[in-house]
């Protein structure tokens, strides 16, 4: 690391401190609150970004002790088991949108009164308006928009200088030969396949709901099945791309950012029809009063306009609040502008889909079985 980047990193590191000091005056005291929070997240770079942007400033202001558990991957199963055992040890759980729907449906997550429990935007907008589309159910406090999108290698000789520009190039083995990596799940893959089979975006789920819809999507996927490496962990596509095992592949946009900007691999983003999803907090239902008070106090702080914008300094996921977007600055250690790397950047979201939680909640079980059977054929 050169001296210059070191200095700029140090300067950036000081920024949030200044921001929190200004904020400290209006952080109301927490009365009758527990003095510790057990938070659950995904581990890795994402959890670090949460600690830097949310919990460390909060701990500095209030002295709250944080314990982190890296169980988000199995949060629903574990939380359900904790409820069945009658011993809920978690106070705050980071989950993806569909999981939050599930927890809310099962009554395991606490409903949140958004306009009362969360801070208004710094432009004065109500939380309901500020969070907008990302409020997907009564229990979910969104933090980020992330997207599942494609990355491709920029040095493939067989492509003769052409680069993929449309999602349908993934299905074009003539023009873009080579292996692709896709997630070993039907969600997103079926939507992309239908889009490239000539279905309009608006009709996607109508077609998928017909008896032939899923088969039609599988048939389209079948045209590239022999050239697909199926992944089950988000880190696989970056590894496969870096090792030249695949020429393009889907994964979470933050993973691709890390391959491109941090590891400097010859990889570029194909943002066409990125699929948006949300990640955020839920609070387990029926917590004791002191723990509930503490966690709500923290939640109000951690999801305000400035805190959400701060997180984007550490990882390339878009803040869930509209009012946070203009505050997104530079990456703390790389020193590059983060706005162009946000999935929510207008240039990146010319074409996009939003994860249809409702449809998948209904059809997941049946379609997943069909998809797995299709994979083993």
């Amino acid at each position, binding site marked *: 690391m050169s001296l210059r980047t070191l200095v700029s990193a140090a300067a950036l590191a000081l920024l949030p401190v200044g921001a929190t000091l200004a904020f400290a005056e209006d952080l109301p005291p927490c009365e009758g609150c527990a003095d510790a929070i057990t938070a659950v997240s995904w581990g890795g770079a994402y959890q670090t970004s949460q600690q830097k942007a949310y919990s460390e400033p909060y701990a500095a202001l209030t002295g709250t002790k944080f314990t982190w558990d890296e169980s988000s991957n199995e949060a629903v*199963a574990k939380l359900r088991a904790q409820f069945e055992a009658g011993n809920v040890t978690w106070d705050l759980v980071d989950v993806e949108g569909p999981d939050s729907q599930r927890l809310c449906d099962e009554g395991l997550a606490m409903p949140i009164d958004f306009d009362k429990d969360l801070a208004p935007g710094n432009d004065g907008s109500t939380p309901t308006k500020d969070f907008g589309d990302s409020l997907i159910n009564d229990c979910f406090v969104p933090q980020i928009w992330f997207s599942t999108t494609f990355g491709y290698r920029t040095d493939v000789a067989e492509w003769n200088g052409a680069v993929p520009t449309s999602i349908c190039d993934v299905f074009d083995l003539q023009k873009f030969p080579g292996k692709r990596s896709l997630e070993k799940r039907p969600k997103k893959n079926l939507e992309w396949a239908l889009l490239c089979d000539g279905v309009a975006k608006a009709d996607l789920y109508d077609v998928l709901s017909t008896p032939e819809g899923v088969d039609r999507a599988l048939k389209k996927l079948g045209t590239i099945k022999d050239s697909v490496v199926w992944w089950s962990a988000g880190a696989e596509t970056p590894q496969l791309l870096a090792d030249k095992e695949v020429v393009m592949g889907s994964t979470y946009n933050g993973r691709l950012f890390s391959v491109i900007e941090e590891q400097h691999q010859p990889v570029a983003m194909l943002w066409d029809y990125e699929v948006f999803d949300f990640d955020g907090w839920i609070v387990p239902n029926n917590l004791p009063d002191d723990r509930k008070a503490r966690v709500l106090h923290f939640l109000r702080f951690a999801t305000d306009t400035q805190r959400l914008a701060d997180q984007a300094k550490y990882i390339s996921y878009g803040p869930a609040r509209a009012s946070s977007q203009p505050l997104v600055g530079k990456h703390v250690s790389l020193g590059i502008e983060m706005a162009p790397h946000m999935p929510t950047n207008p240039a990146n979201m010319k074409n996009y889909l939003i994860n249809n939680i409702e449809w998948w909640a209904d059809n997941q079980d049946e379609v997943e079985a069909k998809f797995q059977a299709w994979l*083993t054929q």
Partner: protein
Amino acid sequence: MTDATAGTAPRASGPMLAADGRPLKASLRRALRAQKLRALLLIAPLLVFVLVTFILPIGDMLFRAVENEIVPQTLPKTVVALRDWDPKTAELPGEPVFAALHDDLVVAVEAKTNTRLGQRLNYEYSGFSSLMRGVARDLKKMDTSQPFKEQFIAGDKKWSDPAVWQTLKLFSGNYTSGYILNALDMQLTTDGIQMKPAQDRIYVKLFLRTMAMSLGITFLCLLLGYPIAFLLASLPLRSSNLILILVLLPFWTSLLVRTASWKVLLQQQGVINDILVWLGLVSDANRLVMINNATGTTIAMTHILLPFMILPLFSVMKTIPPSYMRAAKSLGANDWTAFWRVYFPQSIPGVGAGAILCFILAIGYYITPELVGGTSGVFISNRIAYHISTSLNWGLAAALATLLLIVVLALYWTYDRIVGIDNVKLG
């Protein structure tokens, strides 16, 4: 005890008596009872421990494979009202059923159990999830003085689909065969039990694949492990210790690290393919596909399970006196006959122990097939894990696990009949 019998002269009539004049049988039984009690007390802590931490939780988990209380508990009146309705008719149930449904759902929405029920029934009929979520909203608008049937259907037209009611009726008992049938690629319909459509069948295939690949991996382990164990047992201590360390070193390395290393080695741009291309054995355009398929799983798992084969083999072979082989040879046997007729039969208990160990471990393996198995090298345990932590269909996961347990027990029984479990030695 022998003293007791020796001390009493046998009499012509009456029971045989011990030295203290009591009947010998009773005396013997008392002495044995005390012994049994002491033995029981000695193992009691372990027994209780195993019972509480292993048998009971597993029993509870397996019980979920048939448990279905959520339906009769959430919709008690509807279940009763549905008894008179014939699911084979294409007609909808009458107004009393809808009225009972309304009453049940008002209670359920209050207790927020409606959505849980929706998830349960969604396993049998896709769409129940949103039906039950939406009904909370529709209930508020309903006019209790009007017939409910039309109001339900106006709220969601799925209520006019007889299949919804057939599902409710079929899965209204406290216990269900639904999960187990599903785990066998079958389904419960109004016409009885049927196979699922061919393109939806998956579990039987996965069970068979798990068995076949586990057997193959066990066999490969034996093939590779036997010579190493033989070498270990017959070399002088100094060099055999070195080999033992080489066997144990990977054993102590993290499983994930080893699996990830296989990726580096086996992938198409990986080390092995690079070497083959460099040697000219394989052309650059046709690099071998050795990972993300059954080959990858077999190679990685054979490597991981190899120590479990070598160690029991080694401990048994160590006890075979080398003089037997020498004796056989001095009596005229050639190397092969001496090995096959004298040495090998004595190593059978080790082979049995190693094979059982490898097979049982392989059959339940999960993380390695998930990472290197692609689509053709995944096992049934990957599906169980998926249903436990992702789809949360714990009933189906329990049914699959129960079937796996039954298969393992059946294989164990067969093994006992053919080879005999007494023939297994771990050292």
